[in-house]
């Protein structure tokens, strides 16, 4: 099997300014933060970020990497709102395609299945359709007389045609992976990571630990903990602590103290500069060392 091992910085080296990039996880949970930090340090710009948004969005906005965000929400979970995201929005520094979180799922699914759209009731009647004027409705082709009309109420029904959310690149973070590109999630929810990978042209996993090919199920974990198969991945990078400060059980929980400090740093530019200098604009090894220092205190 191909050896797909790479590094966080090499993954970011594959990205280009202006790309549409999907980021796995959900809110402040199992986010590929090492890659996010590396993007923050890079000269990439003008990115469109597609995510169930958490501090990935906030950090990338705070460092000026983002032109547009596609999302249904941005939250830090234990802190309801990400102040960096709020600031970016309230100062008009970033565009947004805001959709229902189920529409978002269907957009990734459509891209993954290579169809132009998937129909749904979600969005009908809401301002999601007015704030995204390019969204279209689709009328069911199964009208009166068709053998396929189940319920007469659905005859000619109009639904939202959620467009495929095609991604230039996607990055997800897992607890374990192998060099072939299979990915294991040991927490109970794989979220939508397989769909982010399926929707993307260039597909990357970062992981806490790379184990020998074929051994992901050896530690007593059922194969159902390995939702990401190697046909979905082009590269895999081992980066312990790579989801910090988001929650990545069972390896580690959310670093709530750190997250509070991250959020508080949005209060004024000097505080942000200090925070970024210490924790964002440094290499990953330096970052992890500083996190360990904090935790030892």
């Amino acid at each position, binding site marked *: 099997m191909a050896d797909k091992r790479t590094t966080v910085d090499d993954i970011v080296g594959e990205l280009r300014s202006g790309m549409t990039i999907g980021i796995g996880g*959900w809110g402040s949970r199992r986010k590929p933060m090492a890659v996010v930090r590396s993007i923050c340090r890079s000269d990439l710009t003008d990115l469109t970020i597609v995510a169930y*948004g958490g501090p990935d969005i906030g950090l990338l906005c705070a460092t000026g990497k983002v032109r547009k965000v596609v*999302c*249904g*929400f*941005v*939250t830090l979970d234990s802190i*309801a*709102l990400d102040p960096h*995201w*709020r600031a970016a*929005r*309230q100062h*008009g520094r970033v565009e947004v395609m*805001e*959709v*229902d*979180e*189920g*529409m978002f*799922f269907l957009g990734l699914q459509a891209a993954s299945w290579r169809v132009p759209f998937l129909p*749904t*009731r*979600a*969005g*009908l*009647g*809401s*301002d*999601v359709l007015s*704030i995204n004027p390019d969204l279209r409705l689709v009328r069911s082709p199964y009208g009166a007389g068709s053998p396929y009309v189940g319920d007469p*109420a*659905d005859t000619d*029904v*109009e*639904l939202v045609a959620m467009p495929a959310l095609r991604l230039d690149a996607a990055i997800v973070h897992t607890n374990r992976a192998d060099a072939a590109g299979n990915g294991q999630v040991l*927490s*109970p*929810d*794989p*979220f*939508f990571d397989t769909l982010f990978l399926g929707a993307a042209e260039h597909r990357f996993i970062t992981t806490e630990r790379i184990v020998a090919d074929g051994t992901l199920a050896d530690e007593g974990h059922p194969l159902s903990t390995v939702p990401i198969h190697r046909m979905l991945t082009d590269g895999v990078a081992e980066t312990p602590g790579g989801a910090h400060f988001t929650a990545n059980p069972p390896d580690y929980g959310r670093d709530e103290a750190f997250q509070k400090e991250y959020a508080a740093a949005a209060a004024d530019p000097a505080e942000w500069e200090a925070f970024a200098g210490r924790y964002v604009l440094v290499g990953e090894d330096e970052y992890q060392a500083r996190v360990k220092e904090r935790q030892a205190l």
Partner: protein
Amino acid sequence: MTEYGVTRAEFCVVACADVWRDAGEVMASPFGTIPALGARLAKLTFAPDLVLTDGEAALMVGAPPIGTPPAELVREAAMTYRSVFDVVWSGRRHIMMMASQIDRTGNQNISAIGPHDRPKVQLVGVRGAPGNSVNHPTSYWVPDHNARSFVEQVDVVSGVGYARAAAAGAGATRFHDIRRVVSNLGVFDFETPDRTMRLRSRHPGVSVDDVAAATGFTLTVPADAAETRLPTPVELDIIRVVLDPGSLRDREVRN
């Protein structure tokens, strides 16, 4: 304080619980401490078939106290976020969301205050509100009822109200069902000829004038607008002794 010393928060818990009366075997998805207590109270009393999640990726057995550590929860089935959409779109769910703004026809806003392209205040985002509101019964919880939360027209329609659903057609109306709004002042529904908001009951200690003054639009007020019902002694015991001995409910609604 009233008979049994029932607090405002306790009236709110019972009003929320009543939202799930006769719901059957559906997922109750409460947002906020008081709706969470309401759903658990309903499950322990008159709605035993309700399905509750553990807040992560599973369905949990029973109705444990608020704040039970995850390690002590007993789980009965997996419910990943992706499978939640199977439930939402099948209709087997009654959610109680919060609302930063709610309006006369039942539109809810959790997206942004002010113009969406440059919000005055960015909120969390529409989340699942558009899809929830047109797929299964939806109710709302507003712990701070005032003229900024109960508005004539919300700034960004996230959850869809009656007029907007009707204008959107059969695809939107077929499963659309905004049941109740519970606030710290009273209980509201849309059981009026034009499906606009009506006062269903006011919490004891709150006058019709208090409600009207705190509402930014004209409410329908039935001549016989009742008081919100008292919890039964058993319900009070369950709230106070079993589900919320630490009185977290009082942090959401003060007496």
